[in-house]
């Protein structure tokens, strides 16, 4: 009975006790979720356009953030540093297409996945050789103070993160739906061969899509780096983004956002209310378990394309 109480009754009583605190936890979770979404977005873009499960997205975030910080340490103004970093990411996208993707066309997905893990090693090593492996502070001028709205504490930095993420999603949505490049991207995602046959240059498209996800990585790197400092552990946020991906569906931009928010809230709420009952530190696996249970009912995730199997 006591077990039942600690797991199924007490947490809910706690929640009912102080709704304000619950609200604070939920908002904290939403903010963490925004950060997960930023990383997951990069995965989704590449998966949509080339069917590659880009494990190196986490390392790209680290690489972009390291480049930005490194440039700023050489007294390059922030605005210029961001532009330069973007150019570096475009160059990287070009190299990846030229030396990796082009040679791996038509390979099984798992081969491409493995190649991306190899790419992950390259990014990690290269970023640290170029810019050193100390923890670096990234200051992009976003104030970091808290204020109160109706008894709930909010962090300015988190709000900025939410605003930036929302803007980015809006821009991406317009880009995908309204521009001709966006249409070409969706065509490629649909069917490589058909896209080729109507004259869409596959290679250019790949460079574009990896560049875009490089930009997304840069934004994610700025936000994560601003919060926790630019350091090696940024690579591991890729692992944080994976449950978001399977929950939201690999091919869906809205899925990445909503999945991120859900996982963020799940994690925070479970950590605060169920964490003590489990003995703490459940953040590491709770998102995965939640996503796994969810997948049992909907194997393609929230917004993934319906899986149709034919013999």
């Amino acid at each position, binding site marked *: 009975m006591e077990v039942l109480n600690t797991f199924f009754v007490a947490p809910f009583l706690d929640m009912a006790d102080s709704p304000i605190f619950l609200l604070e936890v939920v908002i904290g979770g939403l903010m963490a979720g925004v950060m997960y979404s930023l990383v997951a977005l990069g995965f989704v873009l590449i998966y949509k356009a080339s069917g590659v*499960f880009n494990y190196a997205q986490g390392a790209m975030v680290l690489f972009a953030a390291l480049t930005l910080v490194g440039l700023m340490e050489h007294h390059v103004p922030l605005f210029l540093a961001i532009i330069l970093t973007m150019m570096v990411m475009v160059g990287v996208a070009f190299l990846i297409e030229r*030396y*990796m993707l082009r*040679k*791996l066309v038509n*390979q*099984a*997905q*798992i*081969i491409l*996945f*493995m*190649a991306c*893990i*190899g*790419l*992950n*090693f*390259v*990014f*990690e*090593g*290269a970023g*640290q*050789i170029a810019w050193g*492996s100390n923890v670096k502070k990234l200051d992009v001028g976003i104030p970091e103070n808290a204020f109160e709205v109706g008894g709930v504490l909010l962090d300015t930095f988190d709000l900025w993160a939410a605003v930036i993420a929302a803007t980015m999603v809006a821009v991406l949505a317009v880009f995908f739906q309204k521009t001709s490049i966006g249409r070409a991207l969706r065509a490629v995602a649909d069917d490589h061969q058909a896209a080729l046959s109507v004259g869409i240059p596959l290679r250019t498209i790949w460079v574009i899509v990896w560049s875009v996800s490089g930009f997304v990585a840069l934004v994610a790197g700025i936000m994560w780096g601003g919060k926790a400092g630019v350091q090696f552990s940024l690579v591991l946020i890729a*692992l944080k983004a*994976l*449950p978001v*991906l*399977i929950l939201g569906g*690999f091919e869906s931009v809205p899925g990445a956002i909503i999945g991120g928010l859900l996982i963020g809230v799940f994690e925070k709420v479970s950590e605060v209310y169920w964490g003590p009952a*489990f*003995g*703490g*530190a*459940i953040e*590491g*696996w709770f998102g*995965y*378990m939640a*996503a*796994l249970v969810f*997948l*049992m009912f909907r*194997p*393609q*995730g929230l917004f993934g394309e319906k*899986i149709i*199997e*034919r*013999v």
Partner: protein
Amino acid sequence: MFYREAGQFKSTYQSDQAIFPIAQDRWFMALVLVVAYVAIPMAADEYWFQAVLIPFYVLALAAIGLNILTGYAGQVSLGTGAFMAVGAYATYKLSTAFPELNIVIVFLMSGMIAAAVGMIFGLPSLRIKGFYLAVATLAAQFFILWVFNKVEWFFNYSPSGTITAPPRELFGYLVTGPRAEPIARYYVVLTFLVVFALAAKNMARGHIGRAWMAIRDMDIAAEIIGIRPLHTKLLAFGVSSFYCGVAGALYIFCWLGSAETEAFDILNISFPVLFMIIIGGLGSVLGSILGAAFITLLPIFLTNAPPAIGIHLGTELQKNIEEIIFGVMIIFFLIVEPAGFNRLWQITKEKMRMWPFPY
């Protein structure tokens, strides 16, 4: 000229279905075994045993396990580290609870426990496929390691949270724990690898392996021709986890001596073992072993090569350069031969058959 079937007539079904139908293959295998059992122990010193050979064999065993699941049955798993941890912790608990029990039996029992856990985490594979499944197996990875970290019963309430291999004897020789001779541990690990590799090869070419491959190629079609997905997939998860569990037990008991859950981390085990089977060749026992050799030897080579030719870099720089080269090598191999070392070996055999008159 030397390697061809011509003249080797098979007069019984048994000889036709033999595991190595060609005489040259049999000689070659015998030669490999002689080298592994006699020549290497005579030549190797402690560094070679501890840093190269024992890890190579242990990880080869784990790679065979994962290859059964991923290569033959087509279920991508990133939870190898967790299943190895189950084997290791089960061995620790069993051998401290029953010190009299023969250590080989303990290893096998731990493999069984790992198999049971693997089958539980294999259940989602009936609903979830592809990368969704791969990420779902990460749930097993993180959850199981968290349990071993949190629940003190698993490491016998030791304050440091580590498990340490107790000394156990086999045929009067100490084979586990810190005081065991490297050569004794070498023979134990090698014997496990040989027996398990042979068993895997036989499973893969029998009706079990055919069922796995049918499921891998298209599970709906397999179901229609009468292969039960539930049984087949769970069997693959069970057998694979059994192999991984035994490998995990050997990993702690015959190699590291003591360890925390860190040792079974995703970056330490799960990804490297997946690399091994991809580089070695999916769906091949030989490929698993070759891949394991490559992935364990490459970092050692990269660490030792620059000092050997007189280049001395800082530790930090060297570590980063190693990482880059490792990544580039993996991409390079995937581009050059996506089907892995096993394919290269097949091509070599084909060439030898033609030699010296290729047409």
